């Protein structure tokens, strides 16, 4: 019985890793990030709550497809928390009484809107930002250097003991800093499929189209 659970987690994790590799190979990272940015802006400014809710659902699916870690439970809890916090200050028509608290229409819609926006942006971000993203310019190369150092920190095999914390941390910093540069992270250049770019353009177009339509309706 104890053997089953680790096996299942391992399988889920490796399936997620496989999804992630496929996803990252399919889309060009910068194109994906740009499309994600445009789509998230279109999402943010979309006035209709119903449309945003649909978009959120799609973003959630995309985040799962991208192989990033997604927790439906955490999403639900945070969302409920946001709605509950907004319900604390009653505004609008009273829909029903929940114990001492009055659930009011405007507060409810406002809370739902904020929760959908909050979680929606998180998931479109997850779906469109590959961790291998290389930022442009000199700033980008500093961030890239930071990632290299970060890898070294994570790989550190020394001990961090609370009793000698200062010296241990100092040793870690010295080792990471002065370690001779090894070969750079393997940078495979996968051939990103054209289909991926087309798909991204289509998705972004849909999101912007929904926005324009809504505003055209007035």
């Amino acid at each position, binding site marked *: 019985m104890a053997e089953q659970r680790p096996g299942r987690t391992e399988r889920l994790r490796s399936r997620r890793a496989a999804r992630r590799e496929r996803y990252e190979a399919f889309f060009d990272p910068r194109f994906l990030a740009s499309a994600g940015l445009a789509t998230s802006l279109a999402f943010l400014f979309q006035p209709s709550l119903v449309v945003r809710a649909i978009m959120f659902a799609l973003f959630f699916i995309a985040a799962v497809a991208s192989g990033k870690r997604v927790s439906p439970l955490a999403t639900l809890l*945070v969302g409920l928390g946001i709605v509950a916090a907004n319900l604390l200050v009653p505004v609008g028509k009273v829909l029903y009484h929940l114990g001492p608290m009055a659930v009011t229409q405007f507060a409810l819609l406002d809370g739902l809107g*904020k929760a959908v926006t909050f979680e929606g942006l998180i998931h479109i971000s997850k779906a469109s930002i590959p961790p291998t993203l290389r930022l442009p310019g000199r700033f980008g190369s500093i*961030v890239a250097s930071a990632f290299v150092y970060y890898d070294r920190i994570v790989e550190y095999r020394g001990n961090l003991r609370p009793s000698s914390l200062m010296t241990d941390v100092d040793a870690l910093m010295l080792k990471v800093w002065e370690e001779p540069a090894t070969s750079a992270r393997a940078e495979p250049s996968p051939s990103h499929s054209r289909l991926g770019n087309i798909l991204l353009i289509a998705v972004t177009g849909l999101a912007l189209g929904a926005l324009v339509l809504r505003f055209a309706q007035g």
Partner: protein
Amino acid sequence: MLTERRWNDRADITALLGAFCFFLSAVEYMVPKPLPFMRLGIANLPILLATDLLPLPWYLVLALVKVIGMSVISGSLFSYVALFSLAGTMTSAMVMWLSRKAFGDLISAIGVSILGAVSSNAVQIFLARVVVFGEAARLIAPAFLAMGLLTGIALGVFAERFVAVSLWYARAAGAAARGGAAARGGDGG
């Protein structure tokens, strides 16, 4: 493409401290919090250390590296989480820098850290009120600010002690002072 050259000692220190920001953010992520997206501020410790190490432009770059790098790692760059991170980190960085430069010897890392942490949390509460929680955010404001005071003291104490004993810090201070194009084992940038 990532180069292996140490093209600038200050850039190098900035990148290293940025990496520690990522590391501390990951540590912070594992600490259970009632409000998952409002930061404890442990990840600002490298920025606190940098107040005496880096000149202002690099100091600000470090703050940005922390925010953007962390947002890319956690995939939250386009979300409100990144907004909270940006506002909190930049506020903390600016307040810490200003108080360090303005008060000189009258203040140590402890006071600087307290001011940075409390102001950072204040800004984040304000944002939370506008963007997510509405008026109900007021209810957690006192507790959140108090937590800022406590983490500020803790980080400040750590920073003061660390600077006193750290070999790395001494070397980095020397390298940062030389700064400019002086590079170790490579051509300058």
